[in-house]
Each structure stands twice: as C-alpha cells, then as structure tokens.
C-alpha cells in the first residue's frame, strides 16, 4: 500500500538532495552532497565517525539548515523550511542517542507525538498499539522517560515512529547501545513499515547489517559523498576509505 501523499514526484523520488552544503557555525560539515530516495525505498547512509552522516540526517529533517543546495521532499522545496513544517509533511527522525523528553512520562512522550501526527481521535488506539508492540513501555507508562535505561529510551523514540509510520523515516544509529535481540526486533519493525510504504534513510555505523536491508547505499567521507550505488559496492568503498585513513594516520605519527 502506498500512502496517499507519496505519489510520484520527480521520477518517483520522495526525497532528493542537490549539492547540499551545511555548517555548524564556522565549522563546515557537508560539501555538495547529492542523492535521492525513491518512494518506498531504503537508502543506507554509511561512513566512519565524523563523515557527516548525522549532519545529512539533520539537514534533511530541518534541524540543521543547509547553507546552499536544494532539498525537495514530496514535491515541496524544504531547504529552508523549519523542522516542524517538514515533520508535518510526513518526515520523522529518530535522532542519535537520547531522543526522548526525559521530564515527561512515557505516555506523555507518546501522546505528544501521536496527537500531532495522527490526531486526537486515534490517540487511544495508537497508545494501545505502542504498548502492545513494546510491553516494557506499557509497564512504565507513568514513569519519567529520563528514568528509563538508555536502551529503553531508544525503544520509546522508535515506538513513536513505528506506530504511526511517516512518509520518510530518518533513523540515526538505531542499533547503538541495543542488545542484539532488540536490534533484530527493530530491524523487523523497519522492514514492516517499509512494506507499508515508508521510505527509509538508515544511518549506521555497523555497515554489514544495514547493507542487507537497503536497496541503495551512500557512503560519506569527510562531509562529501564518496560512493553512491548498489549496497554490494558500499562495503568495499568503506574499506578503501579506512585504509586510506590508516595510511594517513601512520604517516602522521
């Protein structure tokens, strides 16, 4: 099933980046990054630490405003749009690390997301689905999210997007700090919402796993695209960058 809003734009791409540059204050982080996400597709964004993966994710969802270039999402130019408008167009972002409001309860965290995304009428049902999918959240619904363990907080931020699937989900370092058994569940959840029409951008450090999932891969190095293509070739590209780094490091010392 394809959600109504994701009909074909620009040859079937739900999201496209053209020569996007971004910076944190004086520090430039992205240089002319371009790639596309087909409707209902899965793109893996890989690269070493500091390659700019998270920055790409944040630029796409509007947390960081691009300094130049163009980002088009569902037919709208979202380059300079504030993050909340992009979110209302159907973008979701599971941020790296803690992505929950620690001073709100588990239920309030979910309510905040569901009210905005799915409306008031569906709230009760959505909460119920979230608690069914992640029983631990149901047990702790009255607890402050800040008192959950690191991994449970990740589950909470995932529950927000898995229960009410967006058009595009940007998932930043999902498996970080999760036990292998949970990682399996999470990846299964991603596959499922993808089958229901959600396009995914998956940012990962652990290359092998995400490349099995993705249909397309983008490898970043020092803020620029180093490789774009079939996932099969991505592993090789990452290795090449690594060995380059190593050489550079050893000559440095």
């Amino acid at each position: 099933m394809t959600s109504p809003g994701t009909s074909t734009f620009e040859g079937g791409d739900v999201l496209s980046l053209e020569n996007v540059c971004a910076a944190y204050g004086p520090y430039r982080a992205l240089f002319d990054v371009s790639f596309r996400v087909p409707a209902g597709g899965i793109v893996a964004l890989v690269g070493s630490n500091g390659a700019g993966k998270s920055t790409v994710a944040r630029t796409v969802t509007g947390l960081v405003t691009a300094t130049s270039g163009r980002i088009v999402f569902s037919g709208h130019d979202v380059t300079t749009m504030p993050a909340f408008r992009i979110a209302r167009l159907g973008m979701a972002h599971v941020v790296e690390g803690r992505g929950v409001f620690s001073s709100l309860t588990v239920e309030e965290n979910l309510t905040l997301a569901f009210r905005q995304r799915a409306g008031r009428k569906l709230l009760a049902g959505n909460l119920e689905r979230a608690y069914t999918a992640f029983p631990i959240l149901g047990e702790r619904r009255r607890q402050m999210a800040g008192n959950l363990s690191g991994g449970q907080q990740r589950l909470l931020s995932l529950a927000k997007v898995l229960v009410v699937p967006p058009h595009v989900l940007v998932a930043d370092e999902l498996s970080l700090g999760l036990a292998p058994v949970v990682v399996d569940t999470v990846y299964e959840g991603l596959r499922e919402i993808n089958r229901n029409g959600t396009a995914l951008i998956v940012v990962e450090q652990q290359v092998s796993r995400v490349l099995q999932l993705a249909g397309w891969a983008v490898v970043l190095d020092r803020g620029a695209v180093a490789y774009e293509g079939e996932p099969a070739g991505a592993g090789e590209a990452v290795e090449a960058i690594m060995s380059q780094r190593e050489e550079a490091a050893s000559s440095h010392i």
Partner: protein
Amino acid sequence: MEHFFGFAFPGIPYGCSYAIVAVSLVLTYQATGVFNFAFGAQAFASAFVFTLLTQNHGWSGFAAFLVSVVVMGPAVGFAFDRLLFRHIPNSNGTAKLVCSLSLLVGIPSLLPVIFGQQKLDATATIFPFFNPNVVYFTLIGTPINGIYLSTFSVTAVVLVALTALLRYTNLGLQMRGAVESRRLVQLDGVNANGVVALAWVVSSFMAGLAGVLLAPVFGAFTADNFAALTVTAIAAAVCALMRSLPIAAGVAVLIGVATTTLQGYLSPNSIIYSAVVPALPFLVIVGALLFLPGMRALESSRDPLATIDPPPPPTAAGARAPKMDRIVRTSWWVLLAVFFASMLTWIPVTWESVFNYGMALSTVLLSVTLITGMAGQLSLCQGTFAGISAFTAAQMANHLGLNMLLGGLFGAALAAVVAVVLALLSLRLRGLGLALMTLAAALLFDSTFFSAVSITAGVEGVSLQSKWLGTSAFFNFDGHALFLLGISVLAVCVFVVLLVRKGTVGRNLAAMRGSETAVAGLGINLSRQRIMVFALSGAIAGLGGVLVTIQQQLASPSDWNYQYSLVFVVLVVTTSVSTVEGAIQAGIGFAVIQQLLTYIPSRFGGPSLTIVLFAFGALTYAAHPEGVLEYQKRRSTLYFEKLFFRQNEGKPSDVSTTGAHG
C-alpha cells in the same frame, strides 16, 4: 482561638497575592524553562502604567486595564521571547538566569527614565467584582471585605486555569516538551518557537494582571514592595520544586498567614519581630534548598540535541596570532604606564576619584570573575561579602581606632568565613539552586546584618574620619595615596586570579564546568575545590568593599544591598566574564559612565540610567555569551590581523571531526 484567626485571616489577602505570583512563576518555568526573576518587575511596570494612566491622565479603569495589562503584558512577553530568550540555547542555564536578572535590575530603573520620577499611590483599584470597602460577612470574628473575596477568588481561578493549561491540554504538553528541547519537539511536528512565544505571552499577561490586582493590597506603591512580593513568591515556588502549582499556591498562602500571625503574637520590640519576620521568605528558600532533594536535580535535564549548536568561539586572546598577541600585550602595558603617569600628574581630582572608585569596584568585580567566570557558578551575594568586610573594617576603625587597612584584612577574612559557610550550605546546589541560595543569603543579610543600627548606623551609614583611613600611614604621596593603594590592591588581586586560573585549582574548576561526574571519578574532591574558590572570592570581594569604603569615606548599607550584588554580576557578564580584563573594564566603565551621566539633565534618569545601560547591555548576553566587549575584541582582533598580516585569510576551518556530528 478567635484571637488566632484575627491575626491569621488578614494574612490571607497577602498570601493570595503571593500565590498568584508563585503560580505564575512556576508556569513560566515549566512552559519556557526560564526562572523569571523579573516577574515582579513586570508586574510592577504594568501596575505603574495603570496607576499613571488612571491618576495622572484621567483614564477610566477599564481603558487603563486594556493598555497596561491586555496589551502591554503580552507585548512585553512576546518581545522577551523574540529578542532574548529564543536566542539562548536550552542548555545554557547561566545565560537564561543572567538575562532574567538583568531584566529584574533594568525594568524598575527604566520606568523613571521613560516616565520621569512620578509620585504615585496605588489607591486606584480594579477589583472587578467586590468592593474593597464593603464588609460582606464576618468569619470567626474577622470582618471579610472585598479585598479578601477578590484576592481569594482570583487566586482560585488562576490556579485552576493554569493547572488545567499545563497538565491537561495538548498545548501544555507541547510547552513542557519545548522547554526540554525545542528541536526535538519540532520533530514531532510542533511549532516550538510559536508554543514558547505563547507561553511567554501568557506568563507576561499574568504578570500584568498580578501587578494591577495586587497594587492596592500593599497600599504603598514602590518597587521594593514588588521585589518583596517576588521573593516570597520565589520561596513558595521553590517549595513546590518549580513543578506543582497547588503546592506553590498553598505555601504562598501559608507564608502570608504566618507573617501576620507572628506579627500579631510577637511584641513589636522583640528581636524576632524585627529580624525573623521580614526574613521569613528567605528562611523558607534556604530551608527548601537545603532539605528538598529535588531542587538539586533542577536544571539538570539537558537538550539531547544541544550538540547541534555551534561550539562557543575562542576568546580574543586565544584567537590571536602570536605576533598580534605581542602587540596587544605591549599596548596594554603602555596604556597602563600612561594611565599611571597621568593619574599622578594632570588628571583633575574629580576624575581621579572616579578612577579610584572604578578600580575599587573592579576589585569587587574580580570576585565575580573568579566564581562565575572560572568556577561557572552564579553567586548573587558578592556585594554582601564586600559589605560585610566594609562594615567590619569601619566598625573596627570606629570603636577600636584601628587603621582601615588592617581592619580591611580582618573584614576580608570575615567575608571569606561567611563565604565558606555559604559554600558548605550549598555544596550540592548548582546553577539555579545556587543562584537562589546566594540571593536568599544576600536578602537575609540585608534584613538582618545591614539593617542593624549597631552595625551600619542606619541608612546614613558609618562615616569615617580620614585619620582612620590609613592611607597616609602607608603612602604619603601628594594626595595620590588612595590611587596607589587602589592600584596595588587591584594588581595583587589580578595576580591572584591569574595564578589560580593557571594552576591546578583553576584547571580543576575548568574541568568541573565540563563534567563534574568525571572530575569526581578521577578522585578530585569537588567540595573542597568549591569551598576554596568561595573563600577566595569572598576575600577578594571583601578587599574591594573596603577599598570602596575608603574611597567614599563612608560605609553605607545601601551600597551593598542585594540589588548591587545583582548589578555586579550583570556588569561583569556584560563585558566579559571569562577574562580578568572584563572585570576591570566593567568596574572602570561603570564609574566613568556614572560620572559622564552627571553632565546630562537629571530628568533623563540620572544614576538609574547607568543601571539601565548595563542591564540592557547584559541582554546582549543572549547573542554573545562570551560578553559583548569580548565579542567586539575578537572581531577587531581578526580585523587588525587581516589588516596587518594578511595571513589569516579567513579560511573557515574545515572540520570533518567536529564533535557536533557523528
């Protein structure tokens, strides 16, 4: 029993007034993340405008209410958010505190600048439903008039409405989310900036409403009354851990009732009556901070997306190329030599004393650099330390005929001891908690130590005969003794601060600003480091206080009240809190500007204009947390470097390794 209620009931209108403000304070904190010290000042401003319009301009109460509360309140709140608080990163608690403090200092000083000095009495009232002069019924022997009914009913309505907003509406939920992270809440599709702006509008409307409603309860129309109102409200809000609206309201009413009850039972001549009753709110604040564990956790929740903010810029000194650094350093020494020579030769007496005052003030301000700039802790009682030392020295001179310089050493030592006690009491407090604790300490000293006639000789203060000043005993140099004394003390203090910064303690303090957890995990005793810094900062403030006293030949309690402590922090933060030059520039700048303002007509506000200038200068803190002078210095440094060396061709550092992205 009837006796008791006869004392207790009159406290209820006061208690309800405190409750309205306390509840609004908690709402502001929950919905905007800012502890709005300026809330009382905002209320005062609205009440001021309302009274001005009705009394001096003959407006009807309704029209004046529209302008002063319905229009002015929200407009001020909107401006606060747009111009100030929106630009402060969520994680920067100090910046939020400093901005609200400078508003607290600036707003009451701004009013006379705009409207001129006005004599107003707050008789005009707009109690909407009940007539204050009518006794509606009698309850256990106490006549209940319109004031009781209106304050009580307004409080109840406000409490219910705000609780409903915050706890049970989607908007309240969004506000609470936005306080924790404006970015994260946007990812849920919430217009974070809009929500927070709305929160400010609601909060400022409440301030205006509270001001206009409460002015008649207090009779006399002074800024001090509103400050007292805020302080009591703060006490109640703190007891509610800045979270629970009903508890805040309950405690506020209790404080009101306790005050009138104590006043009823105690003899007006007893010590408790004159000392404890006025100090009640501060005792409540101190007690809450000491015994409610939840206060320690305040301000601890951080924005998970804070790393998106660009890293703070390096200081001007750190950004300079080595060659430029040498030039700047040399020119500082040249400037110092020229200043030194000029002070001894051609500078007229008036201006010499201005500079002397500036240097004495700089010494006090150095203590702020130490505690706020280096240790990262906001202390709001540095003026109190200075005052303790000043009065100790002055009384020793008065009673024992002791030279002020020797007495000053005793005074500084006593200030250090008080600072250590305060540090011990507040070992577990950080950020807002510490700021409140030190503010309460300052207020406590104002209402006890500084108002005790035996110590401060009343409002006139202790004047000093010149033979006690001791300057002549140490230097005898054509009337420049004071200058030489001032500059030597300042120089010693500067070196002390520089040595500490360079040394182990300074490094540990810098590390503690980064992560206290990790510092403790390395085996460093955080408490000891803090106590040492407090002691040193207290002593330096004390020395500065004595210098000011010697310069003015007068120790006056009004020079060291809590407002001055706030002004000191604001002054240093405006210039540059992280550098030693910042304190000196602030001190001398303040003295010079104050002198310059005596040349313009007093109807433009006179001395309060200085405070307005610095207070609103401090608002630049939002945009430049490093201090506006520091910012200008960095800019001009870069400019001159480009001009002279043409080597630093402004290449943006390509940093693929910035911590900001993963």
